[in-house]
């Protein structure tokens, strides 16, 4: 028993000593830990991409130490609120997700994109129209024709009423003048994939990454994506824009700093992010997980946050 106690004390002491060492004054970002608040649970898409981004940033910025902290409370809202309230000294950063553009207009959150300064957005997954391989339509036009002939018949899977893929489907309905039967799968895209594979629903508009293995195996097909440019993973799939329907719905996640963070510190991070997001290793890391890497940096990312906020404000107002 005494030996065990001594061992415990030894471990504690080493940990304490390790914590004391190496606190020399250095220039930002090497002058202390940088906490990164991830408003989603460990293991999800936002979490893995954030942790990946952090790892690469740490390599790019010698001496820096990024510490990810998951705060998935309240569906991610509390994490985003905590970040907005954090001291804007460059030592607290965080991820925000597309919900930030939607929730304020649904009465679910008080923070908006104006509370943050964007550093970069490593992911902006577009809504992809995915149907089973043996469905009687091969193009967007054929699908729309079928939907018009069968109003309210096509069962369209989404990730929850009022969530992003539901809004994508509502946008689709409005643009093409069709009607779907919306079936929510609140646990997310994996459940939609299972339902599509089991033929319980006819179609979905969702992030294609979860469906990759089924698509690669030829069990599902993607008719079109709601993005500005074609996906690197599916270069043969046309965008809605090319087909004459400029719909852009994307589930992004962005690394941001609270508003008021000094510009020079933000610039250090933005420059590093620019290099990281355009590097081949980073892109490969994402592609291997079925995620289309994007490199929307700095002001461009700020603009995307603002654009989406305006779009959802208009769409959700009615």
């Amino acid at each position, binding site marked *: 028993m005494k030996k065990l106690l001594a061992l415990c004390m030894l471990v504690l002491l080493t940990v304490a000593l390790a914590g004391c060492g190496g606190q020399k004054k250095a220039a930002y970002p090497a002058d202390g830990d940088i906490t990164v608040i991830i408003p989603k649970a*460990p293991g999800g898409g936002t979490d*893995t991409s954030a942790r990946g981004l952090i790892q690469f940033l740490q390599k790019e910025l010698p001496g820096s130490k990024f510490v990810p902290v998951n705060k998935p409370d309240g569906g991610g809202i509390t994490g985003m609120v905590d970040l907005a309230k954090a001291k804007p000294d460059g030592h607290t950063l965080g991820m925000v997700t597309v919900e930030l553009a939607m929730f304020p207009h649904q009465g679910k959150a008080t923070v908006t994109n104006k509370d943050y300064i964007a550093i970069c957005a490593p992911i902006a997954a577009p809504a992809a129209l995915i149907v089973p391989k043996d469905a009687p339509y091969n193009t967007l036009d054929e699908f729309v024709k079928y939907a018009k002939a069968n109003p309210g018949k096509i069962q369209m899977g989404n990730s929850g009423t*009022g969530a992003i893929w539901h809004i994508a489907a509502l946008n689709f309905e409005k643009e093409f003048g069709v009607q779907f039967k919306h079936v929510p799968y609140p646990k997310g895209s994996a459940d939609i*994939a*299972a*339902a599509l*594979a089991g033929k319980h629903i006819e179609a979905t508009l969702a992030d294609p990454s979860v469906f990759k*293995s089924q698509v690669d195996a030829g069990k599902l097909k993607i008719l079109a994506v709601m993005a500005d440019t074609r996906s690197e993973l599916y270069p043969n799939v046309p965008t809605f824009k090319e087909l004459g329907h400029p719909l852009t719905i994307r589930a992004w996640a962005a690394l941001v700093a609270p508003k008021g963070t000094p510009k020079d510190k933000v610039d250090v991070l933005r420059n590093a992010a620019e290099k990281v997001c355009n590097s081949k290793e980073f892109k490969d890391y994402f592609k291997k997980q079925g995620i289309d890497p994007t490199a929307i940096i700095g002001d461009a990312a700020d603009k995307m946050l603002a654009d989406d906020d305006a779009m959802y404000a208009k769409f959700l107002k009615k």
Partner: protein
Amino acid sequence: MSDIISAFGMVAEPFSLGCLVFGVWIGILFGAMPGLSVNMGLALLLPLAFAFKGISGILMLLGIYCGAIYGGSISAILLKTPGTPASVATTLDGYPMATKLHQPGRALGISTMASTFGGIFSTACLIIMAPLLAKVALQFSKPEYFALAVFGLSIITSVSSGNVIKGVMGGLAGLFLATIGIDAMSGAIRFTFGTNYLMGGVSFIPILIGVFALAQVLQSIEDHWNEVRQTTRLAIDRTLPRLADMKRVFVTLIRSSAIGTFIGCIPGTGGDIASFVAYDQAKRWSSHSEDFGTGVPEGVAAPEAGNNAVSGGAFIPVLTLGIPGDGATAIMMGALMVQGIQPGPMLFVDKAPYVYAIFLGLFFANIVMCLMGYSLIRLFAKVTQVPHVVLLPLILVMTFVGTYSYNNSLNDVCVMVVSGMIGYFLNKLEFSMSSLIIGIILGAMAEQNFVGSLIMSDGSLNIFVTRPLCLFFLIAAVIMLITPLINFGKKKKKAL
């Protein structure tokens, strides 16, 4: 055959095996600590897994996954503090066996044996029947999920052994708690009182830690207040299970493992449901069901075999369809993809050696878990000999640290303290905490799939009776609900 040999070559390499052993060890630690979840362990070590070339990183994650499910049972048995939601059912008989019967070694021995058996059984099922079970899993649509949830809820009558009415009340309270937050089916905000915290619903883990760990600490303080410390040292009974025990639980092991494998292969369901269903079935088929809850070996073996059998089952949709059933398998699928192994229908054709390597990895993980478990039982079991004045403050601190580290949220800690206080009094009034937990686990599943089914059928209730699998579960649920009442009636007649 050459595929199997090359797979064996990949796994049976010192570095790979080292990773596996390390993974199992981390898994057991994370599993045993309430608040530290499997997903957290996997996410923390994921960067390390990426750094390792080839299969070794995957083996480490497999080790964590298997080890964590087992680890949850250790604290459940010794401290009545389930380390994971999957081991709540293990407290029902494991804790009485370790404390009231003073046989902690026996309880841990049985749970280790059952865990290993369940894990290996389900791996065998994964190898032999994966395509077949995947087909069954794909049959599950919203009506079937609803029926399965109702079937799960029917267990409440059997885990609340003392008082069925109070059990049902606990279950209903759980169902109510599950409605808090944003309702994903309608987008409506329910019972949040304008707070951000409740938007995502009440966190389940803090409630679990509160009503089990904290309530138990309070109870123990009351029981042992002013108690003079007994100096008699309890000799640890043997750790390897007796032949009689093995014979007694054998049928239970097979039944529970089959249940666990089946539930594991359905995406979105996991060890928590499997362990309760396995416990319930063990009790129903037993000839001495009235002894359950007092520390019978079947009551320890059933939930542990059931929850560990989920591990093999959960890999069925991952490997055959490329669809992860829960957070833990999603993380491991991500790790596989980073190594260039894309799970899914093409995997068995393109990368057969890797498939066999995963099979072997699961086998080895369970064997390592078994060896590690048996060699550490004596050490673990000593916990019951630690004087209460030392042990209780430690657990008390652990409940706070564990709750906070789960989501880094002080609100969670408040929820834990409040539910601990409530749990303490409810325990005194003989309400069953297990039925509360079942209600919370299954509430959202039942509600969301009920609403979803009606969306699919345009509001017609016929959808629940026209689908055979759904009807089967619903009828089974009704039978489960009625039998205890009939037995109760019979007993009453006898008494008169």
